[in-house]
């Protein structure tokens, strides 16, 4: 219970810092959205986590698997929460200096993706070590298992995050009141789901002209 509360509080803190890059509205909404994102990801993946654990012959019951993955989320949330002051500082400063169009959106996104990756990897290594020492799982197998859990979480959590957008929008949308969850509406580059969005990040199609600061003929 204490672990669950820690995860929810820490993820809410990080979500608040993230949303501050856009507005107070986004920041306060993220207090609820981020913990919800983690809860949905954990629930949707619960069965798959356990099936993968059985494949690795991990001597873990269904409940123990959920506790282990819960610890993974807890560690990650704690690490991200520790970075919240830095994220909040960057959010406020970029908000104060942006051009009202795209601003520092891309670099802020890249920074946050990097810290989520670092926090996720560290949590993965620690939990793999925990599985190795507590449950006597071979180190390679423990690493594979925790890596598979993280990959599942990324695949599902990415789509959940896409549906639960916006967490932090680009400055041009400031002043609007978007729905709590945007859902499957196309994003800036026209992607309608997380996987399409990843694909477009690789292909990098051009942004709409009004965001690039070009005049649009109508």
């Amino acid at each position, binding site marked *: 219970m204490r672990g669950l509360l820690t995860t929810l509080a820490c993820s809410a803190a990080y979500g608040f810092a993230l949303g501050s890059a856009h507005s107070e509205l986004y920041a306060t909404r993220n207090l609820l959205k981020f913990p919800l994102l983690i809860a949905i990801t954990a629930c949707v993946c619960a069965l798959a986590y356990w099936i993968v654990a*059985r494949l690795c*012959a991990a001597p873990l019951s269904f409940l123990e698997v959920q506790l282990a993955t819960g610890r993974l989320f807890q560690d990650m949330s704690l690490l991200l929460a520790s970075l919240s002051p830095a994220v909040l500082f960057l959010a406020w400063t970029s908000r104060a200096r942006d051009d009202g169009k795209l601003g520092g959106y891309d670099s802020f996104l890249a920074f946050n993706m990097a810290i989520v990756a670092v926090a996720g990897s560290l949590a993965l290594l620690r939990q793999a070590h925990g599985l190795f020492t507590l449950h006597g799982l071979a180190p390679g197998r423990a690493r594979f298992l925790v890596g598979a859990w993280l990959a599942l979480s990324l695949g599902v959590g990415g789509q959940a995050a896409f549906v639960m957008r916006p967490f932090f929008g680009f400055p041009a949308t400031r002043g609007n009141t978007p729905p709590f969850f945007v859902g499957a509406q196309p994003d800036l580059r026209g992607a*309608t*789901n997380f996987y*399409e969005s990843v694909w477009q990040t690789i292909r990098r199609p051009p942004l709409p002209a009004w965001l690039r600061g070009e005049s649009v003929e109508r």
Partner: protein
Amino acid sequence: MLPIPQPSSEDPAALAGTPAPVIARAPRTPALPLDEGFVKDALTQPLRAIDIALAEPDRVGANVVAGLALGRIALVLLLTSLLYAIPYGMVLSLAEWWKIVALTLGSTLICLPSLFVFSSYLGQRLRLEQILVLGLTVPAVAALFCLGFAPILAFLRATMTAEDSQVPWRSISNVLLSIAVLAGIVQLWRTWLAARIAAPSNLFAVVLMVWHAVFLHVLIRMASVLHLGG
């Protein structure tokens, strides 16, 4: 008696004055076969069936070697393949609940005779029950992975509603199905490596590799016939 390594002048531990620890890997004890009672219980206890299909490749391999309870293990794997793939099929469409079973189990059953005949023809003395247990590992593990993926696919399907998306949920489903089948193939090899004493020459491994090519070809055609390709 393990040889004690002589410290070299470049060994940091030796330079520091502390002897380097000698780590010896304990000899691996051969796995015990699953007893008849355990396998019989698996027919009525779903969790035990999951253990047989997923968690005990070494012990199932030992059963293949010993020829113990093979008929029952094959039956457990068959039932696992049949039942646990249904939820995923129902996520695809209620009317298509049978398609994943047809895809994984159907393709395996179509290809199993060739594995038995070719291995026998090449002098590998594996009995039909042994081949059945090895072969049915693939659809059983794939079905269990499908069971785990079913809530994920249901979530993706509910949230990916755009019909003209470049990455539709059907494509993600195909990736998940590929992972499930791949896990089944990996499990087949784990079981086989535990059971290779039953056919000590490496010829069966070669047969198995060629058989995989046939199996994958049939599987892809089956997916196409069942309109699972997207």
